[in-house]
């Protein structure tokens, strides 16, 4: 059994967690629609049962490994500073019903979906890859959460310091885990995902002559979120030797990432009081609220449909059905 890494679980976890009304995704606001939340959470929870792991699988091994248990100390220091990254840090240290490590879940589902024979199980390397995916995503969240301080502020400076260190730690740990896979193609793909999420921070969504604002949004989201999920899907199929499904898997990863992010934008736009500042207002300037929502829902649904179509290349089994359910849940 491959040992799990990272964070101490301060509360015991149960398989098949009960549905919780509030789910948070990355750093955006809570989704507003009750229906959407319920069906997404349900789809994710059911999917977790299919691949047999507790939701929060970035679990701290018991204090056997000093370096890893140390990180919880630094994350807790961060929590104490009032830095904007508190929520992210709390979710990592105090895992609870709210935290679903969906990216890792997607990787495990993709691994299982590709198995043509019912007896085949997810490989230990694929589980390690799922963990690596979560580690890289976490490092991304933390590092992009560093704030620019123009005036001295001891607390926020400490928060930044902890953020840099914890993010570095997660990146370093993901590299060490990557080495255990003994597959340099996978290493290359994950490294590209790291370069890509970094590049995304430097893209300006304002439309230029050459492309529309929507194209630039797609480009930014592809780099920021799509690249990691797509490359992780691709990598797990490489590890599972499912060569014929690699292209479909990679594209599925990208489509689901864009659909997911589009849905997050829609839900936060609906619930946000200050709409003028929201990215959707910038993508569709001088458009009535209802039309903005409708336009972007169309974008989201295009990606969901594309994802579902790609899924048809996969064998029909619990895992591919679960992936379909997750995709469809985004359409609510």
């Amino acid at each position: 059994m491959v040992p799990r890494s990272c964070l101490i679980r301060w509360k015991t976890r149960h398989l098949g967690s009960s549905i919780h009304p509030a789910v948070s995704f990355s750093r955006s606001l809570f989704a507003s629609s009750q229906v959407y939340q319920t069906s997404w959470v349900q789809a994710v929870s059911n999917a977790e049962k299919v691949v047999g792991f507790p939701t929060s699988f970035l679990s701290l091994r018991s204090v056997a490994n000093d370096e890893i248990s140390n990180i919880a100390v630094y994350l807790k220091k961060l929590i104490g500073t009032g830095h904007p990254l508190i929520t992210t840090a709390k979710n990592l240290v105090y895992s609870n019903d709210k935290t679903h490590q969906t990216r890792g879940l997607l990787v495990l589902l993709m691994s299982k979906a590709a198995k043509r024979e019912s007896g085949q199980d997810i490989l230990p390397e694929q589980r390690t890859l799922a963990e690596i995916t979560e580690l890289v995503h976490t490092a991304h969240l933390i590092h992009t959460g560093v704030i620019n301080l123009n005036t001295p502020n001891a607390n926020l400076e400490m928060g930044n310091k902890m953020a840099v260190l914890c993010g570095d730690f997660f990146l370093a740990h993901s590299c060490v885990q990557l080495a255990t896979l003994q597959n340099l193609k996978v290493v290359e793909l994950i490294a590209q995902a790291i370069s890509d999420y970094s590049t995304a921070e430097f893209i300006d969504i304002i439309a230029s002559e050459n492309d529309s604002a929507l194209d630039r949004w797609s480009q930014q989201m592809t780099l920021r979120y799509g690249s990691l999920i797509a490359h992780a899907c691709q990598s797990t199929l490489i590890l599972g030797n499912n060569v014929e499904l690699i292209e479909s898997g990679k594209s599925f990863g990208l489509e689901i990432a864009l659909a997911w992010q589009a849905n997050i934008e829609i839900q936060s736009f609906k619930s946000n009081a200050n709409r003028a500042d929201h990215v959707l207002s910038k993508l569709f300037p001088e458009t009535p609220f209802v039309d903005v929502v409708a336009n972007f829902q169309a974008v989201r649904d295009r990606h969901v449909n594309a994802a579902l179509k790609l899924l048809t290349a996969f064998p029909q089994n619990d895992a591919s059905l679960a992936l379909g359910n997750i995709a469809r849940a985004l359409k609510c």
Partner: protein
Amino acid sequence: MTAFLASQRFAILFASHNRQLCRAYSGLQKCESLLFTSPPSLLFQHQIQTGVPNITNVATASANDKPDNDAMIRRDLASLYEDIRESLGKSQATLTPIAQYYFDGEGKAIRPMITMCLAKAINCHLNQTSSDMIEKQKKVAQVVEMIHTASLVHDDVIDLAESRRNKSSANVVWGQKRSIVAGDFVVGRAIEICAAMQSDPVFELITKMVADLVNGELMQLDGSATEDERFAHYLEKTFKKTASLIAYSCQSVSVLAGADTSLQNIAFQFGRQLGMAFQLVDDVLDFVATSAQLGKPAAADLRLGLATAPVLFAAHKFPELNPLIQRRFNQPGDVETAFYLVHRSDGLQRTKELASQYCDDAVTQLAHLSPSSYQQILYTLTHELLNRMK
């Protein structure tokens, strides 16, 4: 001949066994004699038989050889920085200047220099000439320099540094967030380049290096060591933060050249001892050089609350330093008191002596290789490193 080789094998074995024993000891005195050399009699024998120079009377390369090889190294270094800038250039217009900021070739470039010279020395030793392999060795130097620089950018945010290499630090120019993310970008690209080398063992060494860098930084934050443990803690932190880069880098190029385990170990130990010496000299310079010479503020370590070797040695003579060390010099006047006491003690002298011992050991390792002009360059470099002023 076999007896000589056997004695060398024994010397290495004894030295490494010594290290493991010493690791378990606490206490300043024992740690000082840690790590290095085989028993004096063996070393002396070795020097007589091969005429290996000891660090205090290093002969520089013969006048004929030096200019050519020097020029070749400089060309290689220039093209290394060009290659790095190119690999970071194909990206967003706002990212590129940050990513490329420290790769202008203005730094000391000590790590790539050591890596490439050692690579060439090992190639001579093993009679390896494949240009493909030489390209990969250059990539190792590139990857290590990229990772090292990214860690500097992150360190500057952590330390709230305002200048580096005689210019404003990246976080001052572009803000903390973009600097951190640009650092991640550089690391991502470096790992891609490393993967393209198609060598699993090299990749594993590079990941060990990355992990050691982060853990070294975490160790530096941790003030929990007791008085007895402090020096050992400092040495371990120094290995992780500084020497590991050079050690794994040297080992990697030896792996690419097809070195067996014992030669890899020699490469590793050479890099390691040189790296340790480098940091010790750095720690001395922090007390001795002016900010203009260093390109960054002096007495920076004390201001960050760090107790480096000079301070730890000084505390032996002035135990009143211990509470200051414990509280990381955070009271008004602590930094000044510590600075003054270090200069009054023999701390700087003892640190230099320790650095010299590490250099001696590095030279001993280097002497295992067949004579070559690159080996000579490394002898000179080791000597210059010990005596540098910035």
